[in-house]
């Protein structure tokens, strides 16, 4: 600060404290001969008196006002090129939307007039136009079709397909959506976005306002103009994040790109609401396709829960939640959804994009799997009933007898509310079948219940694929009526080619009857329909075992353990397969691993280890038998028979197989192909037993 300035400053402030009438004298006194000083102070004083409102309102207020009223509204009958305005149908951050008639083609179109404000950056506009062109080139039924982009002397406009429908926002205001509607809308949106991502376009502004729903249920994504072209890199969107150094992605190069990115962000993405914004967007970081995955996840969450996952009372609270809070599970919001669905949504809205679905295709695939597992939603109109049904289905999917008993309750409750819901009977039948695998004396009772339920399902709806599939399952596993069972499976697949249960159980059936080359493609179809089903993966391994393709079987079982570490069934198979191969070292190693995974007491494991050191695998077999007989009697006579075969006690093995037969243990269907019983083949008692089971 110069001394002169300091002097001016002091005089100015002091003079203002002096009454205006006294100022002249005051300055005379202070400035004396310094004319320049006096002139400076006087001019500042007069400037300060003259103006009162100067700088009194914040800069932002000075700026926004002049824009007001600039965009002229179009009235019905106004023309825009060869389009005649019919009326206004909406307005948004980017501009107003009108419906219009194309006089040349006589068709109805939508006209969006871009805000003046929007094209304040010319580069923005250029980019917008370019990307709108790209989006229109996507030509996907779930993306709004853009017919034309044009300009008049004072504005730019977009002519697009006219959609006679409502935005998802309007729909959500009117009513609650059913789960199948939620899935339908989600799948269509994900599908369109997947296509866009493959073309390296990300939308960045997915929200209910930008999804139109036609009366026929068609969903259309709007406003692709805000989309961002991501750099082509490795062919996948998620791998092509915009460089962080502010360099351009996509087609526009040069110095303007930093501003461009920010200008665009300011315009498009966080205009108005932050409810659908991904955390990386909120932080102003570069975004990639996974931002759309987050936003779509937030939309799906809202369709179910009625509010977005991180919603707060204000934008800033929402932003805080976005970084600090976890979304409420649906259950705590009083909404019941299948666990799988809960997991799907939670994965889509993970804070860290590395933990989300990595591609829109992956999300789409899970949505589809969920949808096909709920394709049975025929015959019930009640949402509550449907939730109950889906809960049951989820539990049945684990193939655990304990879960299956819980599933029985869900299905029975569903049936209680809707006694003509065929799919619930089919689900109930399957739950009983799985529950019966848990052993105990109630097997025949459960199987009778299962059969009743399956028949009831088909009485209500003879075209229900799953009904035929579960009936076939009972005929195959319990009644050992192999001919009838195969007819049921074929009927099920014919009626519902995507019936996962039919393909899965038919695959197992084909292995039982030794048709391995047919069995493997069948089980593959089953887990293509439901890639998350662990049970199907295990069945695949079991088929390979029965087909004596031991190496492949263990590759498969180990894969199961890798994908589903909590699934212990596969472990039990691995050592058995090594045993069949004659690789006892490995068999022992995996036996111990299996025991540990099943939390077997350490002293038992030590017993095995001692036996292994003393007498090798044969000794271990003796110990296994000893352990089994010392415990409460098991209902799995088939497994006990195997234990006797292992130690060469064939008579006892036969005895237990007979018991398994009398108890109609489902494993008996494997008898003709199970490699374990090879030592018994040729024994007339064994061959007679195979015939008794009715195996072809």
């Amino acid at each position, binding site marked *: *600060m110069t001394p002169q300035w300091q002097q001016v*400053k002091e005089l100015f402030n002091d003079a203002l404290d002096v009454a205006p009438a006294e100022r002249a004298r005051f300055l005379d006194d202070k400035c004396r001969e310094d004319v320049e000083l006096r002139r400076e102070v006087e001019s500042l004083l007069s*400037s300060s008196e003259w103006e009162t409102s100067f700088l009194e309102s914040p*800069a*932002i207020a000075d700026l926004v006002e002049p824009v*007001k009223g600039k965009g002229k509204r179009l009235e019905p009958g106004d023309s825009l090129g060869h389009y005649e305005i019919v009326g206004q149908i909406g307005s948004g951050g980017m501009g107003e939307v009108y419906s219009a008639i194309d006089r040349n083609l006589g068709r109805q179109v939508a006209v969006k007039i871009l805000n003046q404000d929007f094209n304040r950056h010319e580069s923005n506009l250029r980019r917008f136009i370019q990307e709108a062109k790209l989006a229109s080139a996507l030509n996907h039924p779930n993306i709004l079709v853009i017919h034309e982009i044009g300009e008049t002397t004072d504005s730019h406009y977009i002519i697009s397909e006219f959609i006679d429908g409502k935005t998802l926002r309007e729909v959500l205001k009117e009513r609650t959506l059913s789960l199948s509607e939620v899935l339908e809308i989600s799948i269509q949106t994900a599908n369109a976005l997947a296509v866009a991502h493959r073309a390296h376009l990300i939308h960045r502004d997915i929200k209910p306002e930008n999804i139109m729903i036609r009366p026929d249920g068609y969903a259309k994504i709007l406003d692709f103009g805000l989309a961002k072209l991501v750099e082509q890199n490795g062919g996948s969107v998620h791998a092509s994040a915009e460089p962080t150094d502010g360099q351009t992605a996509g087609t526009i190069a040069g110095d303007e790109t930093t501003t461009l990115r920010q200008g665009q962000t300011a315009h498009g993405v966080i205009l108005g609401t932050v409810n659908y914004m991904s955390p990386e967007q909120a932080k102003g970081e570069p975004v990639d396709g996974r931002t759309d995955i987050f936003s779509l996840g937030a939309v799906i969450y809202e369709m179910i829960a009625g509010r977005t996952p991180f919603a707060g009372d204000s934008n800033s609270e929402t932003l805080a939640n976005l*970084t600090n809070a976890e979304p409420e599970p649906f259950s705590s919001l009083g909404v019941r959804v299948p666990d799988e669905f809960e997991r799907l949504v939670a994965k889509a809205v993970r804070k860290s994009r590395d933990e989300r679905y990595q591609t829109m295709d992956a999300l789409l695939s899970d949505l589809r799997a969920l949808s096909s597992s709920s394709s049975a939603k025929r015959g019930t109109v009640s949402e509550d009933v449907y939730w109950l049904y889906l809960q049951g289905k989820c539990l049945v999917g684990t193939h655990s007898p304990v879960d299956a008993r819980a599933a029985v309750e869900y299905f029975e409750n569903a049936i209680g509310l809707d006694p003509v819901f065929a799919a619930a009977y089919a689900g109930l039948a399957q739950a009983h079948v799985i529950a019966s695998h848990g052993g105990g004396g109630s097997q025949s009772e459960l199987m009778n219940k299962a059969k009743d339920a399956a028949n009831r399902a088909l009485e209500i709806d003879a075209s229900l694929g799953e009904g035929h599939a579960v009936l076939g399952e009972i005929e195959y596993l319990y009644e050992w009526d192999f001919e009838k069972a195969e007819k049921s499976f074929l009927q099920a697949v014919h009626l519902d080619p995507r019936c996962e249960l039919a393909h899965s159980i038919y695959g197992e059936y084909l292995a039982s009857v030794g048709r391995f080359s047919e069995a493997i493609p069948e089980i593959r179809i089953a887990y293509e329909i439901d890639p998350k089903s662990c049970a199907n993966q295990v069945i695949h391994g079991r088929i390979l075992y029965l087909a004596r393709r031991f190496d492949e079987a263990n590759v498969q079982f180990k894969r199961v353990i890798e994908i589903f570490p909590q699934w212990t069934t596969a472990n039990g198979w691995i050592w058995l397969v090594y045993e069949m191969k004659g690789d006892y070292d490995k068999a022992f190693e995996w036996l111990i691993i299996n025991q540990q995974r099943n939390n077997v007491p350490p002293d038992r494991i030590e017993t095995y280890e001692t036996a292994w050191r003393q007498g090798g695998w044969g000794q271990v077999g003796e110990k296994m038998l000893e352990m089994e007989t010392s415990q409460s009697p098991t209902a799995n006579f088939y497994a006990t028979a195997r234990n006797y075969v292992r130690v060469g006690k064939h008579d006892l093995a036969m005895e237990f197989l007979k018991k398994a037969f009398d108890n109609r243990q489902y494993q008996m269907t494997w008898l003709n192909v199970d490699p374990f019983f090879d030592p018994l083949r040729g024994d007339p008692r064994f061959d007679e037993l195979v015939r008794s089971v009715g195996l072809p």
Partner: protein
Amino acid sequence: MTRTETDEITLMLREWSGGNAGALDKVLPLVYNELHRQASRFLKKERPNHTIQTTELINEAYIKLAGQHSVQWQNRSHFFGIAAQVMRRILVDYARSRHRLKRGGNEVTLMLDDAVSAATDERSIDLIALDEALDRLAEKDAQQARVVELRYFSGLELEEVANILGVSRTTVSREWRMAKAWLRRELTR
């Protein structure tokens, strides 16, 4: 913004500068809140139609601030200083682009001497000229320039400005009074 909130900001900015990346996540929503409050305090009452533009500008400011990864935040005051500069830059850029737009639209550009006759109209302020004048003022009196940034571009009250600059309210009031007189004279010259 409450006392605790501002203290919180300081604390978290320090943590963040100290290498705690999580602190940034916590501070940004508060900052957003603060920026929004500043802008809407004035606008909400008088110009309810402009919330979208406000939001847009605030969002832009927020994003720019969020991008200041390389800055070593020292304290709350340092932060608000930077925030005010960011706001200034954004608003002046905004004015520039609109200025260009007007030219492009064959409208008569607002000349500086028009400002004299329009002096009673608060909205005819030429932000671009003001920005240049403010640079000149900063050379003469850095504190006055900061007061203008905080007051005019960030929309803070005198009390808050005093708090941030660590001077008395009277001092701020005097600085502000003179800066306004000086700038106004510059703009009407």
